């Protein structure tokens, strides 16, 4: 029995969110990894790669987005690790994520739709964000899973 295993990661303000997924429909692991320094999150990411031996690493396509400098640096670091580990990397533009969830008006709608498909994520679903509140870091877990869903729904360039 074989499958394709994906690791999707998305930077947060204090580390990164990750989702490990096996095709066609198995959510293996998910969570938030925090690190105070680049060395800490690098170690955490390397541990995840060693534990789950993913075939494909998926991140958001950061070009042309309003992501902060830390997130951009993080994504560049991830790219380097993927190259060193000979992982296939896929970069998904945000536009493709919304295309994979037709009718979704925002990230929370996408998260709700993912919870319906994977009820085990319900405890991690944050309340809908208000305009005056900052985003809950847990939402990045859903963003990561949405990247995988978008990749599986569409054929995106792979490097």
């Amino acid at each position, binding site marked *: 029995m*074989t499958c*394709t*295993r994906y690791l999707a990661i998305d930077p947060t303000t204090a580390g990164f969110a990750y989702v490990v997924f096996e095709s066609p429909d198995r959510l*293996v692991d*998910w969570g938030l990894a925090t690190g105070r320094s680049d060395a800490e999150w690098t170690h955490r990411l390397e541990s995840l790669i060693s534990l789950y031996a*993913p*075939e494909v690493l998926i991140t958001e396509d950061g070009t042309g987005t309003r992501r902060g400098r830390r997130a951009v640096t993080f994504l560049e670091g991830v790219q380097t690790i993927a190259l060193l580990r000979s992982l*296939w990397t896929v970069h998904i533009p945000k536009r493709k994520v919304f295309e994979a969830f037709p009718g979704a008006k925002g990230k929370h709608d996408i998260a709700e739709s993912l919870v319906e498909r994977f009820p*085990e994520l319900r405890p991690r679903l944050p309340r809908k964000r208000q305009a005056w509140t900052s985003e809950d870091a847990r939402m990045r877990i859903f963003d990561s899973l949405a990247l995988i869903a978008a990749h599986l729904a569409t054929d995106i360039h792979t490097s």
Partner: protein
Amino acid sequence: MQSEPLQSYLRMHRRRHAFSQEEVAFLIGAGSAATIARYELGRREPSLDTALALEALYGAPVAELFAGRFNTVEQSVVSRASELIANVRAAGISPAATAKLQALGELSRRTNLFAS
């Protein structure tokens, strides 16, 4: 692109049920949360009783909980089975030989790893 199954899917099943490692340790009568962590990371192998307790707890067969390990063991059995088939055939036809070949044929169909 194909990956081999993970050695263990214990963590996935535990998180699906929203149990903590401490709760699982209590439920299956294992030492502590650290013991469960070692099982999940593949640093320690559970005893047969513990493996069966995990099956009872998660409602998934041991072969699924330890899919990677099961694949390895299954391949060893299959490779020995092909040797046994040759030996049984060489010994000649008998009712026992027919029953054995039938059982090994079923193993072959289940695993699809060798032709009977």
